């Protein structure tokens, strides 16, 4: 708690406008005067496991001004800055419905996965990073709210995952530790050490030719991934050799202390806002433009101390209360998960940037693995899109997908972020129909 208080003190003041940054803003208050560089648009995902409770989250009305529902109560402050998407379906065709995996992977790749814990293509955040991430220091940043090093659903394909930061301190060190270039530093100059680090990578990149001989296709793909990673690191170092330019009004807080990391709901409530705030400052200072936050794993095992049933067990074991038509205890875990999402949005919306907030210059895609977790159903998976992607997305709308493919959401997201794609997905999830109702 010592840390939380201190962090709030520092972090709270961090949102206060710093006068010396104003000189970077041009008269329109949208772009940086020094370079005329526009405020970048960011993309992020928020994943939570085991879905929502239909009777508690699904509004009766669609379109704008839809009715409020209890499970989304924590998101009410951002209702006009987000879209609720219901009724989309992950088509599995003749593949199995891999429990707690098919929905997750189909949403982020547009392809129903053939194998558990494997992606049949790179995930959407990585595709997007290639277009919008250039120039930022890191291609993407992954975060696990429970501190689980396997809890990341961002991948370049196959069974490799982009490993997550597993505590506020590890996230802080990544963003603001060695290599961070402070934009407010008056006498900024490139670090000669970084020049040397870059030279190391060019030597390593040349090792490639010795490994080409007789190599099989699978190993070739792995080598390609290795050398792609080397190139990514070169770009990170390139970014560290440029004077950073930012438009947001933020200051960098002191390093947080280590915090306990686990899956208990009270702890998640403590840690998630801290991670979200660090992530937001990282975005605002252009350390990355793409992030992935996992609130839990797909078959979510978040738990409330004293109750021996974690979320996932609860979905299967708690009887439906016939009087109300849902599982009372299980549904609370869904509500807690939405509170985690609200904490993320609060952090993004709390940073003024240009003529709006960081959230306005972002698009955050919240999704889950199932609709009704008790049945592992992948039709009607709830999803949310928050932020207006610098004005390219309309907000405040509830859109019902009426059984169309989840890949429409991924296609819409890519188009909103300016990717030149007109179709996305595979087999029955292949679609050329974005949700035009929410594209501005």
């Amino acid at each position, binding site marked *: 708690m010592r840390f939380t208080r201190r962090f709030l003190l520092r972090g709270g003041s961090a949102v206060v406008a710093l006068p010396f940054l104003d000189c970077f803003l041009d008269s329109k208050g949208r772009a940086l005067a020094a370079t005329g560089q526009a405020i970048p648009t960011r993309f992020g995902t928020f994943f939570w496991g085991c879905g929502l409770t239909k009777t508690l989250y699904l509004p009766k009305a669609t379109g704008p001004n839809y009715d409020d529902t209890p499970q989304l109560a924590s998101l009410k402050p951002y209702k006009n800055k987000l879209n609720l998407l219901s009724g989309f379906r992950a088509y599995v065709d003749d593949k199995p419905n891999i*429990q707690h995996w098919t929905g997750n992977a189909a949403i982020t790749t547009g392809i129903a996965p053939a194998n558990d814990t494997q992606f049949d293509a790179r995930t959407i955040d990585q595709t997007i990073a290639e277009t919008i991430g250039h120039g930022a220091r890191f291609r993407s940043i992954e975060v696990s709210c429970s501190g689980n090093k396997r809890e990341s659903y961002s991948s370049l394909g196959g069974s490799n995952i982009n490993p997550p930061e597993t505590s506020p301190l590890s996230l802080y060190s990544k963003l603001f530790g060695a290599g961070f270039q402070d934009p407010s530093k008056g006498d900024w100059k490139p670090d000669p050490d970084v020049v040397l680090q870059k030279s190391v990578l060019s030597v390593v990149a040349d090792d490639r030719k010795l490994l080409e001989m007789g190599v099989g296709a699978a190993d070739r793909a792995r080598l390609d991934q290795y050398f792609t990673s080397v190139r990514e690191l070169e770009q990170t170092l390139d970014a560290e050799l440029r004077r950073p330019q930012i438009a947001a009004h933020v200051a960098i807080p002191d390093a947080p202390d280590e915090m306990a990391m686990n899956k208990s709901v009270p702890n998640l409530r403590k840690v998630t806002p801290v991670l979200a705030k660090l992530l937001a400052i990282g975005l605002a200072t252009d350390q990355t433009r793409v992030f992935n936050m996992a609130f839990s794993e797909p078959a979510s095992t978040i738990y409330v101390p004293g109750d021996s049933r974690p979320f996932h067990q609860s979905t299967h074991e708690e009887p439906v209360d016939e009087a109300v038509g849902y599982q009372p205890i299980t549904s609370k875990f869904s509500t807690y998960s939405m509170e985690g999402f609200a904490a993320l949005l609060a952090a993004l919306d709390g940073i003024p940037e240009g003529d709006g907030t960081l959230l306005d210059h972002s698009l955050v895609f919240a999704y889950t693995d199932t609709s009704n977790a008790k049945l592992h159903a992948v039709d009607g998976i709830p999803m949310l899109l928050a932020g207006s992607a610098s004005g390219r997305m309309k907000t405040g709308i509830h859109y019902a997908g009426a059984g169309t493919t989840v890949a429409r959401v991924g296609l819409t997201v890519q188009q909103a972020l300016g990717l030149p794609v007109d179709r996305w997905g595979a087999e029955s999830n292949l679609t050329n129909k974005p949700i035009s109702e929410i594209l501005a």
Partner: protein
Amino acid sequence: MRRGLRTLILLSGLCVAATQALAAEPYLAGLRRLTESQYRNSIADIFGPGIAVQGKFEPDRRIGGLLASSGTTLSITPAGMEAYAKMADGIARQVVDEKNRSRLISCTPKSATAADRGCAAQVLERYGLLLFRRPLTQGELKARLDAADSATKLSNNFYTGLRYSLTTLLSAPDFLFRVEMAASQGKAYSLDGYSRAARLSYLLWDSTPDQALLEAAKSGGLENEAGVTREAARLMASPRLETGMRAFFSDFLQLDTLGAITKDPTIYPKYSDEIAASAREETLRTAIAMTLKTDGDFREMFTTRRSVINRPLAWVYDVPYNLNGEWMDYEFPAQSGRSGIVTQAAMLSMFSHPGRSSPTKRGVALMDIFLCEPTPAPPANVDFSIVNDTNNPNLRTVRERLMAHATTPSCASCHTHSDPIGLSLEEFDSIGERRLMEGGRKVDASATIGGKQFSGGAGLGQYLHDNPRVPACFARKLYAYGVGANSEELEKGTVQPLVDGFGAQGYRVQPLLRAIVASPQFFAARPPAPLKTAMNPRG
């Protein structure tokens, strides 16, 4: 040089040679990403244990029951590369540090502020050999010397130049992956000497080959059975065999799971990170004692009441701790219900929920680990609510509720398969404490598998001890661990002779290790990919 020459031919587009021509030449037959412990052990062996390795490793993934097998399928992500580069820099900094120089840098430069190619070459050649587990090619060495020169010029410091060129070795794919090179030997394809050396040392020591093993590889001494047997015997006589086998047992018994579980402190206040670490250590010490210290029948791991415990574990087991030291040999009394590693805190707590035991989780895990029988996922559309209606006055215990669900026809086939093993452990709670009552009723720990009836931890231990599939599964996984294969995809012809030999040698692990490294398939390689796919148009 050989490889460099072939590269030249390929790069100049002279793709006349077909598979046959390539076969006589070495080719890349496999890539195995170093595990965290392999990386740490290698650095400690090459530069000394005083060199700190600080950083975050990419997670592994269990394939066919083994993390080691995922090394052959995983690569390195951008975040992983960043972490590896930082670790490399941290290690190289320490190696050239003033206090380590005299020990680790074998020559003194003519001037500390200018390049000295001769001295740099001496250092880089030595560490290149150790880190890449083979000599550097001329091209690789030259690139490193050039890097050292230019870094020295920029910094006016010989050691800074050396540091950056060492970093290029530590960040290279040839260090981060075990690059397995092979060539044809008659009609078959098999690994070259250096790749053989690495396979031997990472299996037996969980670390990089030492100078003697690299010498043997260089002189062709690992290309015949007698030479392999001789080197394997030398490696097995070393105390480092224990490091190697601890790594194997940790993987085989899935002890890494202890790092990923949490227990609800309101229900299990005793549980802590210290208990988890102690439980892991207890199980590893037991496994090592049974297999290396006594070279006994490995199946006694399931029946022994002997263990090695520390003070925190004595608290969980509720037994007296009479020693001032850290660890104490302890023999559980017969009425304790304890029987070998399956009744130790590690196995019991890993496969439980945060707030209660789970016969299904325990059953599924132990079937997978010890019998090589993974349980299929349950059908998607299942109503489990009966399992946890704790208000039902007729279903008071975990067993009663599970049975009510598991007798549903669509659920029965799998639960009959996996539950009995777990039910026999119901006398132990989610962290491994003994409990004879649950919900006011006496716990029923009886089980029936394939007509065999048994009860409790001792019954389960005896069942596993007597089950011939247990040693067969063990031999299969140890072999898969050594070659980096998926244990479920090994051919019976490869495994069966090892299983037979294991039994004939009284189920002792050391003869099994000797048989594995002497097995004709142990160094076998896949054939080279046809030249067409070997040519990368993107170069």
